């Protein structure tokens, strides 16, 4: 047995925390994208507003889900930043000649080297994103009618945001960071949990690229689609 505090802060244990919270966030993001795909339906936003109304119908239970999600994000960020700081301390004196990859089996890349950079960028993105679409949604004035009931017209909010090229650029840029973070993160999470055997290693690394690509393209397409197609 290992005391909980020790288990959560040891080099191996802290990666369990990062991995499990990371995988939970990937699962959330997949659901998030599936829901957002309704934005691609060319019906003036009716499908999307119906989808959004479903969340409203949840009532207070929605807050429970949101707080849970927020907790996972906070845990992932706290452990990630603490780990990165510790890693920095592990090599106080840097190499004069920067260590580029020796190739072969190494996964050293822009993605794997900069997890803390892409992670912090995503943290900043999240603050803006939550303000942009979650907090502001409470104050939406336009309404739309769904099955005879009045609902906030969230499609109008999204549509207005993505008619602005600056917002489009911001979201597209943020998704690049997201893609790089996932490219290494997905594979790394499974390796850190030990969910790996020699025959799987290459496949899971390739799957990481596929997951990152599909999610990034899926999300990136939304602002671009609304901006260019309407």
């Amino acid at each position, binding site marked *: 047995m290992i005391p909980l505090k020790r288990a959560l802060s*040891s080099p*191996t244990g802290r990666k369990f925390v990062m991995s499990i919270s990371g995988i939970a966030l990937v699962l959330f993001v997949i659901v998030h994208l599936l829901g957002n795909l309704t934005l691609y339906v060319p019906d003036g936003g009716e499908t999307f507003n119906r989808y959004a109304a479903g969340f409203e119908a949840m009532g207070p239970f929605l807050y429970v889900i949101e707080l849970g999600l927020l907790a996972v994000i906070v845990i992932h960020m706290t452990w990630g930043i603490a780990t990165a700081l510790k890693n920095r301390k592990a090599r106080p004196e840097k190499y004069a000649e920067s260590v580029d990859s020796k190739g072969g089996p190494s996964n050293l890349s822009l993605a794997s080297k900069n997890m803390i950079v892409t992670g912090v960028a995503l943290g900043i993105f999240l603050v803006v994103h939550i303000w942009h679409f979650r907090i502001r949604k409470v104050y939406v004035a336009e309404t739309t009618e769904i099955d005879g009931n009045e609902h906030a017209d969230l499609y109008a909010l999204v549509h207005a945001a993505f008619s602005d090229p600056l917002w489009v650029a911001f979201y597209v840029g943020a998704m690049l960071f997201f893609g790089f973070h996932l490219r290494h993160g997905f594979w790394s999470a499974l390796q850190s949990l030990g969910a790996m055997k020699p025959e799987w290693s290459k496949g899971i690394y390739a799957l990481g690229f596929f997951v990152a690509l599909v999610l990034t393209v899926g999300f990136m397409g939304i602002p671009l689609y609304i901006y260019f197609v309407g």
Partner: protein
Amino acid sequence: MADDMMTIHLKVWRQAGPDKQGRFENYTVEKVNPHMSFLEMLDVVNETLIHDGEEPIEFDSDCREGICGTCGFVINGQAHGEERGTTVCQLHMRSFSDGETIVVEPWRARAFPVIKDLVVDRDSFDRIIAAGGYVSVGTGPKPDANSVKIGKDVSDKAFDAAACIGCGACVAACPNASAALFTGAKVSQLAMLPQGKPERGRRARRMVHQMQEEGFGNCSNIGECEAACPKEISIQNIAKMKREYLRAIFTDS
């Protein structure tokens, strides 16, 4: 033969002691035989330095056959140089080009403090091994040969992990200065074998925690360690260590 001789420019880290300020010194070595190992080339430089009454460049070496793990430093930003699966004693000057400038620095990690020049203190590795990288043996009568059966596939995997010579290149190459490959190799080697199994939980706990105490970084699964390892030990052993640790969180053994 004389036509093949090379001229090499060296930029070597010189540091008089653990608490002294280090700096790079430039040396030009002429008439380098391309069939010399990197260490033999440094031997020649040191002969000249000693002849001129200067302090020779301090570096560790022992067997010079690539099997003891004593030698090792960073050449042009790569642990043991650019060639894969080799130690600096088995790295030959022919892999460099005539007139090349070569940057030579010690392993850099908080847990590997510099003692002098290219020599670092790797006692932290010994303390990780001492924390659990062994099998406690009861002193009874000698068991019959082959009384303990080990499958060929298992013994091969354990042997691959046991190939670690403890040189420290994994730590040196890791962007986080993590000792996960070194520790993982020992944890998984012993956990696979029947003799090591009774202590597997205790071993995983103690070795991982000792690794943390020593101030090594945390593994980010970048895999540069495997690329730098002269014995090409796989990071599958790190995954195995994670499983051993996960098991050890919940069990007493």
